[in-house]
């Protein structure tokens, strides 16, 4: 069972890095969006430092959103999703494998590149580690909830805008607690971080069932 699970992960990761796919573009998008802010707001260091955490989180949210249609759309269009629905691995686990590969190819690179952008945004010295930590804990929820949205919009052509409208409101708690937990960690306050973790765990429990049900409906 786990062999099949990881076979799907391997395939999706290879696909997302192969030519013409968007994994590297999402990272470029993340960098460009964040670097727009020093240009737009002006080089005033205090101001940049104050908004840095929020800006990086919002940019990560948008970058994640941009890559969501990759999770199921191509598989739906070329018929692979039909085959997955008939495969020996339950659709719930297929969904989870795809979610995991999305996290590995999108969220993880964003987290790794974050210190560079922190430099650009004059992030406070003691906020680097808390920010990366908060992103590490909150980003699984981004991928998982995004997977639900992607599953709900598979049969809609050019469903990108609808997907954004559907998913962004659900990302709001992650954004709020994500930004709060950075300050929290710097001041030794753990509660926001725990909320963030709870949100990730909750979406982990929910996503496989909801997304699999949405796909079954979408395949009609």
């Amino acid at each position, binding site marked *: 069972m786990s062999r099949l699970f990881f076979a799907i992960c391997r395939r999706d990761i290879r*696909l997302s890095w192969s030519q013409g*796919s968007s994994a590297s573009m999402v990272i470029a998008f993340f960098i460009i969006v964040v670097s727009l802010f020093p240009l737009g707001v002006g080089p005033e260091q205090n101001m940049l430092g104050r908004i840095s955490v929020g800006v990086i989180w919002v940019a990560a949210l948008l970058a994640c959103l941009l890559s969501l249609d990759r999770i199921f759309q191509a598989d739906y269009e*070329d*018929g692979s999703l*039909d085959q997955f629905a008939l*495969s*020996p691995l*339950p659709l719930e686990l297929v969904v989870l494998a795809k979610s995991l590969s999305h996290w590995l190819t999108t969220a993880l690179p964003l987290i790794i590149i974050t210190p560079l952008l922190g430099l650009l945004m004059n992030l406070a010295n003691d906020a680097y580690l808390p920010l990366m930590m908060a992103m590490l804990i909150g980003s699984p929820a981004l991928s998982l909830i995004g997977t639900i949205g992607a599953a709900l919009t598979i049969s809609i052509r050019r469903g990108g805008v609808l997907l954004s409208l559907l998913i962004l409101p659900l990302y709001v708690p992650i954004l709020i607690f994500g930004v709060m937990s950075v300050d929290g960690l710097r001041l030794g306050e753990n509660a926001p971080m725990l909320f963030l973790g709870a949100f990730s765990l909750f979406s982990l429990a929910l996503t496989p069932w909801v997304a699999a049900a949405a796909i079954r409906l979408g395949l*009609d």
Partner: protein
Amino acid sequence: MNKNQTFSAKGLSVNRGDRAVFENLNFHINSGELLKLVGPNGSGKSTLLKSLAGLLDLQSGTIDHNGQSVIGDTDWRSRSICYLAHKNALKNEFTVEENITFWAELWQTEDQITAAIEQMGIKLLCDTPVAYLSSGQKRRTALARSLCHPADIWLFDEPTVGLDDQGLRLLSNAMGKHMDAGGMILCATHVDLGIEEAKITRLNLDDFSVNQNTDKTELW
């Protein structure tokens, strides 16, 4: 493979949206037989195959395999059904062999890969990315993948689209071999598959179409 199998359906009715596609459809086949689905375009051949594969919900009716009801049985479905419709479910980024290997790995039939590739005459294409193949070659690749499936029942929707004469011959050989081993095939097609008439049962979907009495003016 068991040579005394039966596959039958009684009283099948299926809706697409609000429209009834067919009503009260029955068929029965035994090991080594092919059920050829015929009927004009839009008569519901694809819909029937899709609903037998469990990708569409039935309105009413029963489906039995060896006397056991199999509706909603996902274990049975992944074990006993090999479904191939219009979409080839191939990834352009991968080579022919990688495409087939991925699915064979899911079905745990890696030992069938070489034989299947030879059976469809695509040995020389093994290392070619699917993006460079012609539509007939893609079809052969998809068929070769289906040959790796351990299922007893093949559900093929227009499997011959894009195939040349040699491809058609290879397909009919493969079908013959599957039937000789005790397998069953349901195939929607308009061409002569080159299989002994004695083994073919015809099912005309037009016989089960729902009388379209709705007054068109009502729609306006």
